[in-house]
């Protein structure tokens, strides 16, 4: 019972931080061009813009 009392809050916290990261990623437009993102990694240039 004790271990559950620790593990459940940890699990919820980890899940929530993942959810928060996803919210941030969607809001900053990172999912707008999925195919392009896969290709841009091949361009070796300075990410100035």
């Amino acid at each position: 019972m004790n271990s559950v009392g620790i593990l459940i809050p940890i699990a919820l916290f980890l899940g929530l931080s993942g959810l928060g990261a996803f919210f941030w990623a969607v809001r900053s437009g990172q999912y707008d061009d999925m195919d392009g993102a896969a290709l841009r990694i091949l361009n070796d240039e300075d990410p100035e813009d």
Partner: protein
Amino acid sequence: MTAPARPAAAQPLATSTFVVEGMRCAACIARLEHGLAALPGVAAARVNFTNRRVRVDHLDEIGEDRLIDAIDGLGFTAHAFAGETADGGRSESRRLVLAMAVAGFAMMNVMLLSVSIWSGANGATRQLFHWLSALIALPTVAYSGRVFFASAWSALRRGRTNMDVPISIGVLLTLAMSLYETVLGGAHAYFDGVVMLLFFLLGGRFLDSVMRDRARGGVDALLRRLPAEATVVGRDGAHQRRAIAELAPGMRLLVAAGERIAADGIVEDGESAVDRSLVTGESAPETVVSGAEVLAGTVNLSAPLVVKVTRAGEATAIADIARLMESAGQSKSRYMRIADRASRLYAPAVHTLAALTLAGWLIAGAGWHVALTNAVAVLIITCPCALGLAVPVAQVVASGALLRAGVLVKDGSALERLAKADRVLLDKTGTITLGRPVVTGGLPDAPDERAILHALARASRHPSAMAVAAALAGEPGAPVGDIVEEAGLGVRGTAGGVEARLGRPGWAGPASDNASIVLRIGDAAPRAIRVADQPREDAAAAIARLGAEGLTPEILSGDAPAVVKALAARLGIPGRARLTPQDKYAIVRAAEESGRRVLMVGDGINDGPALKAAWVSMAPASASDVGQMAADLVFVGTRLMPVPVAVAAARRTMRVVAQNFALAIGYNVLAVPLAVAGFVTPLIAALAMSGSSLVVVANAMRLRSAAR
């Protein structure tokens, strides 16, 4: 990067979006973005590879035409994309994906707790886990469920019902029921079922919003093609800029070369060539002399004209087309999507079933608690998860496959309608043909002659000259001095001490055959270069395949009968010539009224009303803005094959949708008796729900290879 080329931040920037063909790799993205950004006056360029589009922020004075030329220079083909005005559609999808993420998070966490309950946790542990689940599920339903509650509420307020009403009732009742159980320390709480329901439904809703049509302000775009102002020549000969709303019949307009004509009228003075493609869709410029009629929206190509206005504003031919398109669009919006038809039957059935279950258990002598629990179980188990996913998943997978094959599906119901089309009407210029002249023969062989020809052809924007320049692209051009373009005649210059001319037969030299343009260098014999608009390379094969799919093809063209007849004979299909936009519209309407479902394929504004009126329509990406917006599907490239491919893919999609419906209904037929009889536990509900949804998704995945 060079600093002076950057526009200052204070200057207003315009944003243009282009559909780009030929983008295939990472290097293409870099080449396009850097090439455009290096242009003076361009602030930024961003490629969206998924949609094959590039968004350019640029100074107002740089026209879209120049950007298209620049993209051409980088080795791609671009078309202005006018479909998406605001990001309205995207923010809707974004809202849904966030709601889905919250539901997904809650689903996983509640499921984690539920698994321990199913595997035997009881007493205080079960109680704790139920409370924890409630803690997660309540805010989730409040956040993710809003989508359904809002839509259900607005339907109920207007005295109607939709798919969201049973969903909302089911979700809220189940939640209330589970809370009640939790407070009393009961064994069964359905928090996992509630959030899972929301997750799958939002998944379907999200995919659907991806498919939802984007802003379709086609008519506005048509009228935007008119210039905002025109130069009016006063009685005293003074020139004055006036807004087009102030134009009236009888006024005289001065139209500079390259300017768009602002009103319908008659040429009073001047001789020029007019590009009428906006209204008639025909690519070859028409020579106009004094007394000729010109239409608003057409472009004066080579020399200034004085035009006496006969009709202005709302009375112009182009405004007429706009009105026709508006009324044609209204008839189309009455089409009811298959998912909506299914939900119209579904919602009352589910409510009746749940009510009957409640009544049945009460009559059988069970208490309110048991009766209500079983009724809620019926609502949960009949959750239209699989039904809600059945159509959008199939359509999204199929349109993804079509996009890879070069067909953009603009409207969610387009595939449904396309699958049922049984007649295809095709425009000629720009649809069956490429819509731009191509050199078919007569080019000189001698390198020096070719070099001079190239230099002359490059100097002109006339479509025939551009065709010659395109045919010689990559070859060197000779130094030609004193190049002068003579309006309506051609280009001349001096090369190696002799005069060289390229232009109309009779001006450059006598024509030996029906040449389109003539090249003469010095006293050498004039050379006729044949230029013609050519059918797309696979036109015959594509039309044959359409026929094999059971669609009767016919050509509808505004062009001359002889040209249409020749092409129709070559393709072995009937054709009609010299049709006005109103004629095309009437033909489409007549066919529809006789019970046929017409697929209209066209590109010009003259096809706009017909595209709108047709059961379903397609346009090439090279089409005018209005053509693209009026059409349900847009195809890129120089081939016509995407048209039959899209038809075949649409039919396969509808077969998969039918299978999905069968699967979803079959699942209900099995599960509902269990629920009515009171055998459903939270575990069974969860398994049944996710199982049926996954089967439907897996079945739709088979469409990934649909576009062949």
